[in-house]
């Protein structure tokens, strides 16, 4: 019962935030008319039309492939390179400026280059997402590996922990704090880049359908696609990072004010004579 209540309470503020956003939307529509902002009802109707037409599944699967596929590729490569760079110092030093250069180049440049290299089809969008998210994860992983606690590494050596335990019990959890915000950024970037590539590309995916709606000056449909993307971003973020954030919240050292009051029996061990083995 308490769990349900706390979960319901946790949903109240995000729901209020979204409600406020919808209210602003309605106010803008009321103030400036349907040419600037379509009404919520028109947008909902457009959304219903999209869902009924069957275009939704095609567009959704295309965009998911570009964004999620690309970001997975970027995360895997960025993490592997960051880990290797953190453990092998010269490699890290060599890769760091390359990552900075890639990070500094605007995604639109990669979109154009990908179209030239791989064509305007789906592969270009996927590769663009991978290239733009890779350095974000690489930099975070590199920083995390370099900043890892040497005392824990020494403890692992003394207890002769196997490689797998060192990785899963020490390295990955210690990286989680720096990786969580980087993953959030990478996932957010992936949607932006995938949609940009689709808008400029062959018309596939949600971006392509959005561009088509814009070309027909169908603002309600364009906003319906945008609303769909927003929902998708929230769902994917919750699914992919929700449990990581929950774990981080539980496992982070509590602040002194949050420290649990120790009962008297816990503050001291039992008398040695009572605990002979």
């Amino acid at each position: 019962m308490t769990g349900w209540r706390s979960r319901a309470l946790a949903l109240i503020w995000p729901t209020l935030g979204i409600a406020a956003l919808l209210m602003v939307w309605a106010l803008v529509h009321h103030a400036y008319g349907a040419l600037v902002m379509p009404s919520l009802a028109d947008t909902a109707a457009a959304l219903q039309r999209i869902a009924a037409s069957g275009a939704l599944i095609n567009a959704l699967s295309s965009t998911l492939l570009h964004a999620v596929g690309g970001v997975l590729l970027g995360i895997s490569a960025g993490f592997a390179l960051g880990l290797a760079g953190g453990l092998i110092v010269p490699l890290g030093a060599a890769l760091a400026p390359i990552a900075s250069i890639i990070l500094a180049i605007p995604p639109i440049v990669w979109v154009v280059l990908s179209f030239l290299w791989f064509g305007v089809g789906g592969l270009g969008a996927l590769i663009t997402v991978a290239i733009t998210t890779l350095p974000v994860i690489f930099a975070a992983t590199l920083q995390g590996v370099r900043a890892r606690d040497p005392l824990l590494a020494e403890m692992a050596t003394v207890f002769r922990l196997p490689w797998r335990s060192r990785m899963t019990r020490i390295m990955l959890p210690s990286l989680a704090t720096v990786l969580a915000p980087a993953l959030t950024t990478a996932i957010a970037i992936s949607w932006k880049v995938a949609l940009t590539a689709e808008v400029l590309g062959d018309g596939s995916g949600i971006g392509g359908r959005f561009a088509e709606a814009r070309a027909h000056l169908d603002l309600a449909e364009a906003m319906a696609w945008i609303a769909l993307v927003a929902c998708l971003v929230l769902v994917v973020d919750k699914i992919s990072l929700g449990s990581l954030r929950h774990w981080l919240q539980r496992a982070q050292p509590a602040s002194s004010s949050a420290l649990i009051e120790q009962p008297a029996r816990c503050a001291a061990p039992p008398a040695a004579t009572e605990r002979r083995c």
Partner: protein
Amino acid sequence: MLTLSNIAFTLGGRLLLDRFDLTVSPGEITVLLGRSGIGKTTVLRLAAELLRPTGGTIVNSFRRTSYVFQEPRLLPWSSALDNVALALDPLERSRRKRRAEAELWLTRLGFEPSDFGKYPAQLSGGMQSRVAIARALIVKPELVLMDEPFAALDFPLRRQLQALTRDLCRAQNTAALFVTHDLAETAAIADRVAVMGGSPAQVLSTFAQAPTPSLPELWVAVAELAQRDELRGVFDPPARHAISR
């Protein structure tokens, strides 16, 4: 048996240890006593193969060696139970068995089941030290290296943990090399005392020490220890002329 013979160790061009000899016998708690900064932790790190000596030989014939560090070195993202069970990772494949054994050890060290799931940040300093001791002893080591593990704790808690550690080592016939600069700790826990001094440091003398279960006996033992010839000059303040100079 752990034998350090004629050890020399240089760090940053400075000779820290020279002609350093020390033996730790099975089942015996050997206290390495010396002032702060003399290189006691270095000796433990050499014994744990975390450092390589510049000269001399180290022979460790104990089947399994464990370590209790000066600070608990617990994984902040793992519960007390998982921190203890971690040490069994290389020895026991079954996670269920590892956790069951960890529960046993935490109970042995005075934890309630409600404490098992707590994270290090939710534990007091004494509890963290006990988790570290449980982690070191769960592997049933023949030798445990202890680096002033109770230095940050208050006297009553320190005394209880000293007694507990001593009893647990006795019960498992575990030898210990215990590093401290504290005479009361030495009197409370030692079977044998190795006095470290000089520059570069070496073992100046070793002598047997009787255990002291009660507090009045402890103070008598400390007073006797302080009077020993072997400690003369080791903890004395520097001469006045040395300060003025």
